[in-house]
């Protein structure tokens, strides 16, 4: 069973994540207020905010997924406490350096640091770009070591083919691979690949940086690698949350645990392939990318939805439909999170269609869809885990009125905030603009609406934050008795 040390480090992670989450939401609201011309920031201040918001959100929800998976994995295999702690320390160091780069060094090239902008960004201090890359290296190493160590632990119990549940593809498998182990494995493989892509990008950056102009990178290669990393990690962190659903949704609902079947095994093996090739959809508007890869991008993006919706979402619907289950805040958050995931996925599939992408690429449609499956999907998965983790010993999982109000606030805030994004996307409003040109009539108006609703969302998050971290502090300061 989970040791006290693991509970403590998990509590520490959760509190840190939630604090950073609240701060990053505030940064997001500040951006929307500036676009709505309610407040006035210098463009440089806006872009440092934007960069910080992006990298912080990606970082915390990735580690949130890793923390949950690490915690639940202890049910099957022994995980390394020291590596968990090592990842925590390096993550905190990495975040501190990143914030230094953005707020003191004015690094403002966006969290994806698309080549060659960071090398030609006049607004930032000369040390900001190399230091940003160093911070990413620290995070990359910490997370890589963490992912590989988790892989190594499960590989001590299961063989590689068992991890991918290949024996379930035949009839009468002798060993059962729990779905949680299967999904964690598939996801961790993707995570490792994406982190290695990041390391290669950073190495190529440094090669150019230290070559005094003798070595120049190829912009197309760098863009491919950047989105291999960026898209894949953003996609995989959602799947870490899905792994948690497979493990505890049935449990908290008072139902028998889900089993791996042949179609679950097949679906997740397919996902492994599709996720690693879907990133090509970020390069549709780069006509230099060969047409073959563009079409692979569209097909892989489409196909990625089939195992996800056909297996996972369908399984959750089956688990609930006309089945009397014990509803609590935990499975309710999971359930609503799945709706957010599906709707965000619909927005994503529409945008991953090349002929639509021509009029949607880099408009507000892009933040619209990824905020849907993050703010209304992945965040809810992680909040559900946090609730479950923090209350597991107290067993007060009833839905109180206060819970219902908080959920209502979260939903209204989230939906309003997202609709402003989608409408902006349909009105051709560009993303990543600090202020809007006067011709875009609806842009700043929609930004104000988005900011107002985001404040409601923030309110709900603050209530969750209070409830969860209060109990996590209790765990953190608890003694072994």
């Amino acid at each position, binding site marked *: 069973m989970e040791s006290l040390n693991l509970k403590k480090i998990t509590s520490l992670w959760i509190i840190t994540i939630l604090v950073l989450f609240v701060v990053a939401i505030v940064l997001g609201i500040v951006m929307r207020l500036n676009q709505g011309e309610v407040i006035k920031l210098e463009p440089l201040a806006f872009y440092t905010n934007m960069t910080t918001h992006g990298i912080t959100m990606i970082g915390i929800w990735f580690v949130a997924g890793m923390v949950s998976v690490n915690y639940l994995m202890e049910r099957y295999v022994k995980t390394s406490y020291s590596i968990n702690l090592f990842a925590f320390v390096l993550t905190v160091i990495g975040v501190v350096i990143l914030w230094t780069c953005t707020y003191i060094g004015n690094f403002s090239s966006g969290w994806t640091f698309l080549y060659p902008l960071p090398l030609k960004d006049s607004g930032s201090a000369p040390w900001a770009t190399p230091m940003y890359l160093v911070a990413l290296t620290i995070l990359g190493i910490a997370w890589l070591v963490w992912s590989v160590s988790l892989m*190594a632990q499960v*590989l*001590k119990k299961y*063989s590689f083919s068992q991890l991918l549940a290949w024996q379930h593809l035949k009839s009468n498998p002798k060993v059962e691979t729990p779905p949680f182990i299967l999904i964690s494995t598939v996801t961790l493989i993707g995570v490792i*690949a994406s982190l290695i892509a990041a390391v290669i990008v950073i190495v190529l950056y440094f090669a150019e940086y230290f070559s005094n102009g003798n070595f120049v990178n*190829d912009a*197309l290669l760098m863009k*491919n690698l950047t989105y291999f990393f960026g898209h894949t990690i953003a996609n995989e962190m959602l799947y870490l949350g899905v792994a948690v659903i497979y493990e505890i949704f049935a449990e908290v609902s008072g139902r028998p645990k889900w089993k791996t079947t042949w179609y679950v095994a097949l679906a997740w093996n397919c996902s492994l392939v599709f996720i690693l090739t879907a990133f090509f959809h970020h390069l549709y508007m780069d006509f230099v*990318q060969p047409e*073959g890869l563009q079409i692979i991008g569209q097909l892989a993006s489409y196909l990625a939805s089939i195992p996800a919706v056909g297996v996972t979402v369908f399984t959750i619907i089956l688990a609930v439909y006309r089945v009397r289950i014990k509803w609590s805040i935990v499975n309710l958050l999971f359930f609503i999170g799945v709706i957010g995931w599906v709707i965000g996925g619909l927005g994503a599939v529409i945008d991953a269609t090349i002929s639509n992408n021509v009029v949607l690429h880099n408009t507000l449609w892009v933040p619209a869809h990824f905020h849907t499956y993050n703010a209304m999907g992945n965040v809810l998965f992680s909040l559900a885990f946090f609730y479950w983790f923090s209350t597991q010993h107290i067993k007060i999982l009833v839905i109180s009125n206060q819970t219902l109000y908080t959920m209502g606030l979260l939903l209204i805030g989230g939906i309003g905030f997202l609709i402003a994004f989608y409408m902006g996307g349909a009105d051709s409003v560009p993303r990543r603009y600090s202020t809007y040109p006067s011709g875009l009539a609806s842009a700043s108006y929609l930004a104000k609406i988005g900011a107002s609703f985001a404040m409601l969302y923030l309110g709900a998050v603050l209530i969750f934050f209070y409830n969860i971290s209060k109990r996590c502090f209790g765990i953190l300061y608890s003694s072994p008795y």
Partner: protein
Amino acid sequence: MFRNFIFVAILAIQSTINAQHNISTLDEEKNIYEKISNVPLKIVNRDDVRKFELLYKEKPVILALVFTQCSGICNPFLIQLKNSLQFIKTDKNYQILVLSFDSRDNLESMSKLAKRFELDNAINWKFAITDSIQALNNSVGFSPLWDSIRKQFDHEALLVGINQEGYIAKKLIGVRSHYDLELMIRSINHIYTPSYKLPAKNSLFSCFNYDPLTGKNTPGTGLLIIVLPAFITAIIILFVALISRTKRLSS
């Protein structure tokens, strides 16, 4: 595996060769879709003087500018052009016009040049001189410099692709691969190319080389780098799996 290494090594060498040319990236885009000057041409083995217009209306033209007394790039340039074109199997229309930009050249010297390259009987090849070379040079953005000490022109190796309407559809500077030549042949035959790469300092890391023959891009070394993350991941996992396996079996 070994073949891949050789492949990478050749590309590395090629890229250093490319680097030596050191051309400004947008030079090849100059004069694109401008009309070629309609100068009168005197063509070897033909008696009459005919306007350039008659030539390109008949077939799209690849124009190579040379001079016979060149001790530099002209010879390797023509050899490379001849060899590359032999490789190209295309149903597309084109003819090659080798034109002297040196007023000292006459039909006789051009005829000798054709014989030396065994091109005097080649159907698609024409060797010619003109009395209005300056107008032509201006229209294609070609500016050779006379070096009075070496008694040579200082010039770049330039190919100009001209379509049947007389517009410059593509320019190539320097000795280039047959891929680039094919791209030129497609351009002068009005075939849409969604994108192409500009000559760059290094091509070692570019992902694709455009293959105009099929209209597809062929993988370059950069592509190996794109699949590298997946490859390294596979190695790491296999490695971890092997170590864990021995532990699993021993326990």
